[in-house]
């Protein structure tokens, strides 16, 4: 028996009890006193007079009762619906299938299963002439429409947990007029449903410890070491001892036992220098955990390889770029002059990156290239113009990876070029007088960065943020691209994707809308996007504090056992009730009036 069916059963039980009570009262009525009188002649006169008025009332009341009974019988036969207007016979059920509805309750069922069961029971009790609109808060029901009950049950069965942390009751549905409107929810992510809806709560507090954030970074001051930052949240009401576990794709593992107080959020830093690059799974294990979706987070640890830089400079002796490169721990720098570069066979150069200072090669190199002090050349992807002012103010593109933590505010350029005439390049910074870009970058398999000035004609070597610019430059060109972290759902892919693969190699379909490519990451995991510029990693996880807070319900009812179905009165129930009432009145009338009252 479910909460929804209880009132109906209670109603019928009450009716049966009432009928039994009336019968018993009739059977147990006190015996009537018999009195022998000389004659009833005078009594008859008295009764005739006294009953004259009563008879008139009795006649009218009997007429009224008879009319009422006839009307109620008609109600019972034709089951008229007293509600009027557009929403007549319509029922809207909104099922909250936001991620927190996956929380498992004490009875072993998830909140969503409980909601679906309650809704199924409700649909089973509905009269057959009702039309039902089933809709979810994750928009998995693409085109909600009123259907018959059987189809509604099927739609209801198909509803599964969604991934969006921002569930909504679709505005079209919330405006829809209906006879009954219910929202089955736990009230955590959905919050308070619209006022026009009655809420059926499936919320029950559970125990949950989840991962709310994961990040990997180099150890400050020691770029050779790497560490992981993991944030955990105990959303339950009791302290827990949990086991945090990091596993790499190559088999490295790291475990740590942690005690978390109720409601506490703690951060953990773990040294993962020994981990190989690749996918990393972070998981947390705790006893009696009722919500498993935030117990596991996938991320990607980018490669920590050494970058071989070949510096081609006309005068390498006092080259400050060289000195800076030599100071960088991951950089193995070699220096050659322009002549040596020209005579060398390009494929035999052992370098990951070519850095030209005041030198422009005769043809485009076949590897990532940086050129300071560009001069016109045929192979350049942009046009070069000698229009450089002696003093420029730089306007930077902060979104460009090169410009991360770089200001270039005091840059002075005494001579150089500006670029123009190309559409497939990105401008990291340009002059403020709109003379054109001072630098451009072009992605691809062999990216290229062009600076319109060099270290001789500018003070860039002397700027405090030049090392950072250089590091960003090496990272952008030499390292793997930064991974994208996103919750499950539809994810936009930067650039054009060739294909998207999951952890098990399964290929996911992509689609393009308005020059933007998307794919649907239906579950947490690590996805690899193959683009024209190379592979891109997307770590999809549900690690978020709002997601782990499965007990933050905004609905007052908190115990599933106390669930009471709303007033699910059906269209004909009023007629049934009134019919039974009329029957009761008829019984009372017969018992009290015809059997006892003065004739």
């Amino acid at each position, binding site marked *: 028996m479910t909460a929804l069916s209880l009132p109906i059963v209670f109603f019928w039980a009450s009716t049966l009890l009432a009928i039994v009570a009336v019968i018993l009262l009739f059977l147990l009525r*006190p015996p*009537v*006193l*018999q*009195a*022998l*009188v*000389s*004659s*009833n*002649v*005078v*009594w*008859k*006169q*008295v*009764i005739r*007079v*006294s009953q004259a008025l009563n008879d008139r009332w009795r006649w009218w009341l009997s007429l009224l009762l008879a009319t009422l009974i006839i009307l109620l019988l008609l109600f019972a036969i034709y089951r008229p619906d007293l509600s009027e207007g557009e929403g007549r016979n319509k029922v809207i059920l909104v099922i909250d299938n936001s991620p927190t509805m996956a929380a498992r309750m004490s009875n072993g069922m998830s909140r969503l299963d409980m909601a679906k069961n309650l809704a199924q029971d409700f649909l089973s009790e509905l009269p057959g002439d009702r039309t039902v609109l089933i809709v979810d808060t994750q928009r998995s029901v693409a085109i909600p429409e009123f259907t018959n009950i059987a189809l509604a049950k099927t739609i209801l069965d198909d509803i599964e947990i969604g991934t969006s942390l921002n569930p909504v009751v679709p505005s079209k549905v919330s405006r829809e007029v209906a006879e009954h409107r219910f929202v089955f929810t736990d009230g955590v992510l959905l919050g308070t449903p619209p006022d026009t809806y009655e809420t059926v709560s499936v919320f029950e507090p559970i125990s949950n410890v989840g991962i709310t954030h994961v990040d990997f970074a180099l150890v400050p001051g020691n770029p050779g070491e790497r560490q992981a930052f993991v944030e955990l949240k105990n959303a339950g009401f009791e302290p827990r001892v949990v086991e945090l576990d990091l596993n790499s794709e190559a088999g490295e593992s790291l475990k740590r036992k942690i005690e978390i107080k109720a409601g506490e959020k703690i951060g953990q830093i773990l040294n993962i220098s020994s981990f190989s690059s690749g996918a990393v799974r972070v998981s947390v294990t705790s006893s009696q955990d009722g919500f498993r979706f935030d117990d596991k987070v996938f991320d990607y640890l980018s490669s920590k390889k050494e970058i071989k830089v070949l510096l081609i400079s006309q005068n390498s002796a006092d080259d400050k770029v060289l000195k800076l490169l030599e100071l960088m721990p991951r950089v193995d720098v070699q220096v050659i002059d322009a002549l040596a570069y020209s005579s060398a066979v390009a494929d035999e150069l052992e370098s990951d990156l070519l850095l030209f200072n005041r030198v422009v090669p005769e043809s485009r190199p076949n590897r990532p290239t940086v050129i300071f002090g560009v001069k016109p050349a045929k192979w350049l992807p942009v046009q070069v113009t000698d229009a450089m002012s002696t003093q420029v103010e730089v306007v930077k593109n902060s979104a460009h990876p090169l410009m991360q933590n770089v200001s270039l505010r005091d840059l002075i350029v005494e001579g150089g070029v500006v670029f123009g005439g190309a559409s497939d390049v990105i401008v990291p910074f340009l002059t403020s007088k709109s003379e054109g870009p001072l630098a451009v970058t072009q992605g691809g398999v062999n990216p290229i960065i062009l600076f319109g000035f060099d270290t001789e004609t500018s003070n860039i070597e002397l700027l405090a943020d030049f090392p950072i610019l250089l590091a960003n430059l090496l990272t952008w060109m030499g390292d793997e691209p930064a991974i994208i972290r996103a919750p499950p759902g539809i994810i936009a892919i930067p650039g054009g994707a060739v294909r998207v693969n999951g952890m098990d190699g399964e290929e996911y379909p992509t689609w393009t809308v308005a020059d933007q490519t998307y794919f649907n990451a239906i579950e947490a995991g690590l996805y690899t996007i193959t683009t024209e510029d190379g592979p891109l990693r997307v770590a999809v996880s549900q690690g978020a504090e709002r997601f782990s807070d499965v007990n933050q319900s905004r609905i007052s009812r908190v115990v599933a056992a106390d669930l009471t179905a709303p007033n699910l009165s059906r269209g004909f129930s009023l007629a049934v009730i009134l019919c039974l009432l009329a029957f009761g009145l008829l019984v009372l009338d017969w018992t009290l009036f015809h*059997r*006892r*009252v*003065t*004739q």
Partner: protein
Amino acid sequence: MSSLLSKEFLRRLDGLTLLLRRPVSGHLRGQHRSKRTGGGMIFSDYRPYSPGDDVRNLDWATYMRLDRLVLRLFEEEADTPIYIFIDSSNSMLQADGGKFLVAKKLAAILSYIGLLNHDRVSLAAFSDGVVRELPGRRGKNQMWRTLHFLEALKPSGITNYADTFKRYFGGGRTRGLVVFISDFLQQEPLELSFKPIKQYGHEVFASHVISPSEVSPELGGEVVLVDSETNESMNVHLTETLLRQYREAFVDHCSSIENFFRRSGWGYLRINTDDNFEEAALIGLKKERLTL
């Protein structure tokens, strides 16, 4: 002497005489005025003398004055038939039979007085007809038989006045005094019931016997009222209002009966079984000028 009348009470009745409002039609000598002239004491008229008339009644003073023989006529005193009807229907059993006892006592009183006055007294017990009858008797010595008759009566049946009167008087009875003792609890209108008696010109004296349980019944709540004569039952919820209405209706009922007899020029005496019967009877009879 009898369960109905004590010696002392009979002695009080010895000096009573029945008074009738109209001259009687008796054939034997009695103590009531009759329409016939003869050897009475009360002067009635004159008429011319005819041969054969009793010369003792000649008015000699007139003869001396007018020289004509004129005979003085005197009213002759005669007896009268007294028909005493006693209601012996089941309704008379109420008040523990008190109503029927009162009826029998009253019948005994009037029989005694009638017999003392040399009237011809007939007794008839009736319900839906004459159940038992004691034919007319004269003389005080018939009192024993009368009392035995009355003592032997048992109530039964339902009341039906009209049938009783039609059958009893249909055979032709000398006009006389009809004494009717009953509780008058019948549905049939009295006008219809007493029509035969009116037609035959009888003088009627009605005695209405009532009991306290009829005047003010001590009942209440849900009651099934069972008619003692017809056994017809009636479910009633007796409220104080209904009881008050009954009491008023019963008074109206009694008044209507009394009014009927008064309008007809007949005597009416109501006796409650709770009253002191002997005093109530003697006073009532004198008040109604039935006895002197």
